[in-house]
């Protein structure tokens, strides 16, 4: 019997109703996908495709005035969208943690690194300040920061972008969430540092057994780290498949466009999209095992 997924997003719609408008504006429409236990799923799309808001919705922290308008977000059996704020607060950090795009601006510039780590730890566990501080130093060491004790006493502006990102990962790790959402964790970092951060993220999964939802616009990153991929465009999911399957047999036109735009991805650039044919108005269809495509059907069906 297949295991219940850790995260099950079901027909999620996010939007808002502008002043004096009758209809709400949707930025995310009818999004459904799952993240299994200990799985790394990539959420990929161009800017404005709605991937960040989808991720933030899991934390119930969509950017105002946007909010979830319909659907369910089921984490470990509980629909997060129906929880009262009090309970949601206990979910944040403890069950789901998120790393934001710009690590340096995610840290309080006026607080020492160690203090910021320690107080997140103390708010989730019953430990003393001193123990939390020690744990902070340990965590800094585990995420690969040299001289952790010194760094703990430093301020964010004294660290490089890569180091800040490691701190964020350490923050998230320390509370051992079941699901870690990483929003563009490598954007803006040097290529060599990117590789290190990705490796660190995978190490995290190995050590803590967390599932990871990796958001990015870079298919190269997906290719390296993820097991499954969800492709979004204009607020909707257009394709879901395993990484191998997606690169071997991309079906949706937008996916193809993305692939062509990414240098070095393992697919022939001008693969003709013969295998599918457009079928507007239809939702996600499983056109191959585990491979879902939006609004298309297999060409060979028509030949019949």
């Amino acid at each position, binding site marked *: 019997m297949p295991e219940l997924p850790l995260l099950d997003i079901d027909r999620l719609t996010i939007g808002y109703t*502008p002043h004096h408008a009758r209809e709400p504006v949707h930025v995310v429409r009818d999004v459904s996908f799952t993240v299994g236990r200990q799985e790394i799923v990539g959420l990929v799309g161009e800017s404005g495709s709605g991937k960040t808001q989808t991720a933030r919705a899991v934390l119930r922290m969509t950017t105002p005035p946007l909010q979830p308008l319909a659907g369910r977000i089921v984490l470990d059996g509980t629909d997060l969208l129906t929880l009262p704020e009090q309970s949601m607060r206990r979910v944040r950090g403890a069950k789901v943690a998120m790393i934001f795009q710009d690590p340096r601006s995610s840290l309080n510039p006026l607080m020492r690194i160690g203090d910021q780590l320690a107080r997140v730890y103390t708010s989730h566990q019953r430990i003393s300040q001193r123990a939390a501080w020690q744990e902070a130093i340990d965590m800094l060491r585990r995420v690969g920061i040299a001289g952790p004790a010194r760094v703990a006493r430093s301020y964010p502006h004294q660290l490089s972008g890569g180091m800040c990102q490691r701190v964020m990962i350490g923050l998230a790790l320390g509370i051992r969430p079941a699901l870690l959402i990483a929003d563009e964790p490598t954007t803006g970092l040097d290529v060599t540092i990117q590789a290190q951060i990705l490796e660190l993220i995978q190490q995290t999964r190995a050590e803590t057994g967390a599932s990871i939802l990796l958001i990015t616009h870079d298919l190269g990153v997906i290719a390296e780290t993820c097991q499954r991929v969800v492709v979004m465009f204009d607020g909707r999911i257009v394709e879901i498949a395993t990484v191998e399957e997606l690169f071997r047999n991309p079906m949706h036109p937008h996916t193809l466009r993305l692939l062509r735009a990414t240098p070095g991805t393992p697919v022939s650039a001008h693969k003709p999209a013969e295998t599918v044919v457009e079928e507007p108005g239809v939702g996600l269809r499983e056109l191959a095992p585990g491979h879902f495509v939006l609004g298309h059907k297999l060409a060979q069906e028509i030949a019949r």
Partner: protein
Amino acid sequence: MGSLPARDPRIYVGGGILLALIALALIGPHFTSDPLMPDPESILQPPSSAELLGTDNYGRSVLARVVGGAQLDLLIALFAAVLAFVVGSLVGGFTGFAGGFVDDVMMRLVDILQSFPAFLLALGVAAMLGNEIRNVVLAIAVAYCPYFVRIVRGEMLAARVTPYALAARAVGNPPTRVMLYHLLPNCLGPSIVQLTLCLGYSILDAAGLSFLGIGIRPPTAEWGVLVAEGTQYVNSGQWWIAGFPGLAILLAVLCFNLLGDRLREAVRA
């Protein structure tokens, strides 16, 4: 994200007051009695149906005097603020564009001017120049010039390194033309907000100077003068002589503050 609601009360209230004031200033005097005409019969009358705002110690209609003052105060504000805006923007644009030593010196000058609170600077200049309307306008303009210099200079510093500026130069335009014609208009956005606010501050400062006897003097009907004249009668309970002119000042400044606030958010978004 999203635009500000069009039905912002600030626009309505601010704009409404402004229109009313302008109307009052332009055509009001036709409908009121002569502000300079004393009437010994009705001295110090409280507001009534006959005289909406009461009469002062000469029997003059407070309403007439307030309406008469509207034109003067609005004009002073207009001239002072626009003068500060024009001179300040030109200087700021020039010094921002020129950079280097010129910029350093100019910024030191601006620092020195801004080491005095604006009102005190205007006070000093007005005191030195004498009690004339023109001097009040000059004094206030001098006080607010530095703000415009700073704002426009800041914008110009950013603008002069844009590809747009480089392209204008590359095509062969002389630097002065590039600065004045191409770049400066784009730098004026934030200072328009400041201009609106300055209109309000100018009225406050002009009235304040007059109240102290340093700006405009009686019998010229300026709102600050009117408040000053009415102050002594407050002790015997005649509050309306000072009260209503001051209220007029408040409303005038309020409308500029409201509009300026709204403008600031619009420029930022």
